[in-house]
């Protein structure tokens, strides 16, 4: 598999959020505004990439039996660094993300990539895989939070978009709207992926 493929599969085909459907809670919980969603996306991006690199470096020294605790300790250390950084430079964001920042530690996607990619591959592949997954995750966060902030609140990055007469669709800012929106987004992406597959097959049979 080419290195470009390693990077790019995380964006659409294996999008960690919509296709692999791992680590769902942040996408629902923190996406009420674009700033929060973006911060969460970037945090996960940073953690997954650095964790992949660290695990890839130490992969030969880890005893197979204790590998999961080792991975979790690595992830927890990186997350604590991010927490301290945000607490110092962006205390408001730190408060807004609250408990969900702690929970980055147990995001299945990070552990899954460490186990399935970083523990078996070299640094370059692990790094690119982490970057790709991070980009895919960040894009998912941005898409969801743009829809929810734009229609649920009538603003984008805090700037009013529709003028004062707009009545926000409050349901999108509330939990039920978040569940339903993600359900429909997943269905949409599934349809799109399937139609692409079909197109590929048609092309193949003609050629």
């Amino acid at each position, binding site marked *: 598999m080419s290195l470009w493929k390693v990077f790019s599969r995380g964006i659409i085909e294996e999008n960690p959020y919509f296709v692999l459907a791992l680590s769902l809670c942040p996408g629902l919980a923190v996406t009420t505004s674009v700033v929060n969603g973006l911060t969460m996306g970037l945090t996960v991006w940073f953690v997954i990439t650095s964790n992949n690199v660290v695990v890839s470096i130490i992969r030969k020294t880890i005893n197979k039996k204790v590998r999961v605790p080792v991975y979790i300790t690595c992830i927890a250390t990186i997350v604590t660094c991010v927490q301290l950084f945000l607490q110092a430079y962006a205390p408001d964001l730190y408060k807004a993300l609250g408990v969900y920042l702690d929970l980055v530690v147990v995001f299945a996607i990070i552990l899954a990539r460490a186990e399935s990619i970083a523990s078996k591959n070299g640094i370059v592949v692990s790094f690119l895989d982490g970057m790709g997954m991070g980009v895919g995750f960040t894009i998912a966060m941005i898409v969801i939070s743009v829809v929810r902030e734009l229609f649920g609140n009538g603003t984008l990055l805090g700037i009013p978009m529709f003028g004062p007469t707009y009545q926000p669709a409050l349901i999108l800012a509330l939990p039920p709207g978040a569940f339903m929106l*993600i359900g429909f987004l997943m269905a949409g992406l599934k349809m799109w992926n399937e139609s692409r597959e079909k197109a590929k097959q048609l092309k193949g049979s003609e050629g």
Partner: protein
Amino acid sequence: MEYFTLFVGAVLINNFVLTKFLGLCIFFGVSKNLNASIGMGFAVTSVITMSTVLAWLLYNFVLVPFGLTFLRTISFVVLIASFVQLLEIIIKKQSPTLYNMWGIYLMLIATNCIVLSVPVISVTNEYGFLENLVFAVGSGLGFALALILMASCREKLDFADVPHALKGTPIAFIVAGMLSLAFLGFSGMI
């Protein structure tokens, strides 16, 4: 009365799954089958209760006196993971029947967001020991309730004619949205 409010709040109003979105992996993963959901619901409740009590003790008697509160995340994760592992060994030795029922769920629970978040929320709100216990039991039962409701819905959903694109996870999300809408109605209770 204060404890009762806290309990009802944790079970219904601030339901962890449906209003805080925690534990979704288990929620969508296990809810295809009602029996599995009941087992999982109670396994999660007991693990949450015990690990929250342990985490509370660790936080208030070790981390706070030594000024190490920034190690909260790491220490809680390690504590919960090792505690669940220990629990698994004990159950396996003491009661093989129970192990056959619960064993597979225990490892899934070890690194789950709901088990980590209850202690974290509890120490950020600076609950006392009893409050902490009531909050933990309430959160666990709230999770079990949501899981069992969801599993009952999904078992019926198998016989429904769902549009092709929505089959599987997407329709489960929409059902969860409706359940969440129903739970939103509880918010006026207190």
